[in-house]
């Protein structure tokens, strides 16, 4: 008998016995998509039974109420069952129930085959790619919807769909693009890049990170599945204004609940970023040495954490009005219709910056490293992000200048709105000043970054028109708005997402994309984007309202032109997908630092080692010290030889 206390190990805990791979036992009961599927079904069944039992008990007729069963079963318990099934909660459940956990178990980390992307993976690099692939899938679906309604709009009158389907297509398109593409695509890029840039081995909460990713497809499926609901998809726009939303068919509930899942995902990711950025910076990585992408995600995360609960609230209120017959927004019951818009925009205006600031970060990285120059006015660049953060919370009612809100609110909201032009202007001027006398490498990410700068200026300037109350009264709710948001969110956000994907593609995959195809993709996108959205300013000001399937025949020719241009824009995306897929499979092997950038992610191999850094980097200077003799951002491998070399250099 030995007196030593044995270390806990796998053999002593039969729970950790795993049946062999491929056995029926393991397939059905082991964490994974199969268990996810049956547990989702079980969740739905449980929800349906619960609702029916309670209704029967209280004697309500009918016992089967489809909408309520869908809410409780399909939109709450089925997703929870799915998440439990794929194993998102395993560790926590073990911990809570007092069963042993394996703190040093890294089996959830890294990816050796494509299977590893289809399970709960705790590696921020895998999660980043999971995010990006998922979001591009929903981008494709949302884009196809746009192609569909552009076909409908090619001539006045109804041709292909009925009016509820049309409203559904428009609403689901916007919802997918916002909640399932732009916001999470940025989260994906940041998930991949931020821990590397900080010199951290992973995010602060890897399991939470995995969970936040898996909430996303749930939200996306709800939005798309709303087309299958009786009565069709939600058709009150992505803004879902009450009371229109309250009278919508059942599809509206899919929106109300989908937003909850997408919002929860956003909040968890944002908390994760905040904790990671605050606590996991490498030694020497002060706030003033952080790359601007990190700054951008820091401010974005603050916006997400503070604002997202408001949209969650607004959608719950609408749903309660719909299915529980509360009266938040029904005037007959004493509700206040404009209350919806105030709560909704208190999130959805900051959301515009949630969809923009990470792009600012990406563009700062790309322009600095491709111009081989330090970013112009680094501190002012970071401070202007904070300026936008603060001002961003004080402008929401500029969406309501014609909504009939309190008159006194108009002028203050106009002033704060116009003031946002100042920090935004600082950023734009600093980017172009960074180009000045640089050594400019016109690679695909750089093309998209420069395309972004010019297009975003147009979107920003049309925003100034809309910030002015009198002009807004004329232009609000017209195609001018559609043009404006697409210049900001497509010419702005989507261009930066493309820039980011091309820029980090070699780091993510270890392979190089095709520059030729990339440049074709850029020019096709750039030209067709402008051909699609620029004329919308015109039809809008001239009198075409947004969200209509039919319009004055005077706008027929221009709408036909816009539709054709939009099909070219859609086709240009195929080039991108082709380039990504083939380059990932068999592109040339990428160097670890193809752009000769200074930030930390480029100082490790491509793709990076499983825990990013084999030794903790020591940060010794700013991230963009191009052209400064002897300047370094970080010291990575303080092995003996290197240290001696360094001594010599200094001597």
């Amino acid at each position, binding site marked *: 008998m030995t007196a030593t206390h044995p270390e806990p190990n796998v053999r002593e805990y039969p729970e950790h016995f795993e049946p062999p791979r491929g056995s029926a036992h393991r397939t059905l009961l082991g964490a994974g998509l199969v268990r996810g599927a049956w547990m989702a079904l079980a969740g739905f069944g449980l929800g349906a039974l619960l609702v029916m039992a309670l209704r029967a008990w209280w004697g309500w007729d009918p016992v089967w109420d489809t909408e309520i069963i869908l809410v409780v079963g399909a939109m709450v318990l089925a997703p929870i069952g799915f998440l439990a099934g794929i194993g998102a909660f395993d560790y926590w459940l073990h911990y809570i129930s007092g069963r042993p956990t394996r703190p040093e178990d890294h089996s959830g980390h890294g990816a050796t085959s494509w299977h590893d992307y289809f399970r709960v993976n705790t590696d921020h690099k895998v999660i980043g790619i999971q995010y990006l692939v998922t979001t591009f899938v929903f981008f494709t679906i949302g884009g196809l919807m746009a192609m569909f309604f552009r076909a409908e709009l090619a001539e006045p009158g109804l041709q292909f769909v009925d009016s509820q389907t049309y409203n559904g297509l428009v609403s689901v398109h916007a919802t997918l693009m916002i909640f399932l593409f732009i916001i999470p695509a940025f989260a994906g890029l940041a998930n991949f890049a931020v821990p590397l840039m900080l010199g951290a081995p992973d995010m602060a909460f890897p399991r939470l990170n995995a969970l936040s990713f898996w909430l996303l497809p749930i939200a996306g499926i709800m939005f798309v599945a709303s087309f299958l609901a009786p009565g069709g998809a939600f058709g009150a726009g992505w803004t879902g204004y009450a009371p229109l939303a309250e009278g919508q068919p059942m599809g509206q509930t899919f929106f109300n609940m989908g937003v909850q899942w997408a919002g929860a995902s956003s909040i968890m990711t944002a908390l994760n970023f905040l904790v990671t950025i605050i606590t996991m910076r490498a030694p020497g990585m002060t706030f003033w040495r952080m790359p601007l992408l990190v700054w951008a995600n820091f401010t974005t995360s603050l916006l997400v954490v503070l604002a997202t609960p408001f949209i969650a609230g607004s959608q719950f209120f609408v749903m309660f009005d719909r299915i529980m017959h509360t009266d938040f927004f029904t005037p007959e019951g004493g509700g206040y219709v404009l209350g919806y818009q105030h709560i909704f925009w208190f999130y959805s205006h900051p959301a515009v910056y949630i969809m923009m600031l990470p792009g600012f970060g990406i563009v700062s990285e790309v322009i600095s490293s491709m111009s081989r120059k330090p970013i112009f006015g680094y501190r002012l660049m970071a401070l202007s992000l904070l300026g936008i953060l603060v001002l961003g919370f004080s402008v929401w009612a500029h969406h309501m200048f014609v909504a*009939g809100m309190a008159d006194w609110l108009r002028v203050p909201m106009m002033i704060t709105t116009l003031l946002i032009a100042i920090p935004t202007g600082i950023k734009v001027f600093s980017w172009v000043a960074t180009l000045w006398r640089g050594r400019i490498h016109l690679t695909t990410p750089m093309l998209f970054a420069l395309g972004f700068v010019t297009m975003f200026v147009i979107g920003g300037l049309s925003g100034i028109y809309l910030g002015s109350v009198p002009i807004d009264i004329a232009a609000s709710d017209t195609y001018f708005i559609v043009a404006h948001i697409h210049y900001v969110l497509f010419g702005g956000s989507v261009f930066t997402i493309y820039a980011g994907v091309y820029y980090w593609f070699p780091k993510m995959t270890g392979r190089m994309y095709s520059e030729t195809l990339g440049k074709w993709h850029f020019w096709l996108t750039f030209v067709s984007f402008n051909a699609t959205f620029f004329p919308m300013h015109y039809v809008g000001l001239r009198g075409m309202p947004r969200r209509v399937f039919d319009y004055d025949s005077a706008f027929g020719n221009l709408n036909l032109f816009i539709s054709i241009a939009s099909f070219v824009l859609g086709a240009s995306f195929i080039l991108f997908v082709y380039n990504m897929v083939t380059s990932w499979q068999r592109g040339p092997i990428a160097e670890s630092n193809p752009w000769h950038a200074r930030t930390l992610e480029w100082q490790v191999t491509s793709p990076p080692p499983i825990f990013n850094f084999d030794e903790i980097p020591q940060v010794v200077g700013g991230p963009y010290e191009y052209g400064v003799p002897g300047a370094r951002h970080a010291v990575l491998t303080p092995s003996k030889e290197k240290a001696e070399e360094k001594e010599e250099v200094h001597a």
Partner: protein
Amino acid sequence: MRKGIVQLVAIGVVIGVITALVAVLFQWLPASASEEFDRIQAIYWFATWMSVVIFSIVAAVVVYSVWKWRVPPDDDAEGPPIHGHTGLEIAWTAVPAILVIALGIVSAVVMSENGQARDDALQVRATGQQFAWKFEYPELGEFSTGELVLPVDQQARFTMEAVDVIHSFWVPNFGQKMDAVPGIETTINVTPTETGEFAVVCAELCGLGHATMRAKARVVTQAEFDAWIEEQDA
């Protein structure tokens, strides 16, 4: 360097002229048929000239830099380590600040002028209901009409409400728009300056028939208007 500045300015002027031509050669705004829209169009042009200048500056620097300082892919030199320039940074904080504040002041003035209801304004009630407008003239009789008729050069003050969901009253040629909201009353002024027929468009998504929720606005002389009222009242 001097030659470079000349080239940069030349590019800026070319872009500026092209953008300015785009701004003036197309009829971006519908013809104004109200005093309110006349004032709005003045701010529109203020914002437009500001935008032309700002866009031209940014685009010129981008185009010039890429043209002048583009290097082949194998170039591995680095640019000059310029970290910033306090004077420039102050300038591009202050100048836009002045511009937007100027725009804000002009806008606030126009807003207040357009919002002023005169004592002799013609009172019009507009009610939105899926998917039609109903207009009433409470001072002139107890009738309602689906066609909006207004006398020229006389301010009309609209009081709006909605029966079911939010609608938005918009006449593009008047440049005025206001939501009709269930449960509250909203107001807006229109002072027509041209006689003729104009479209009333619903601008807020209001359901299945939103695209077809249109009406006609007819602006007539005071005499014609009085005659029309007689006719309605009869």
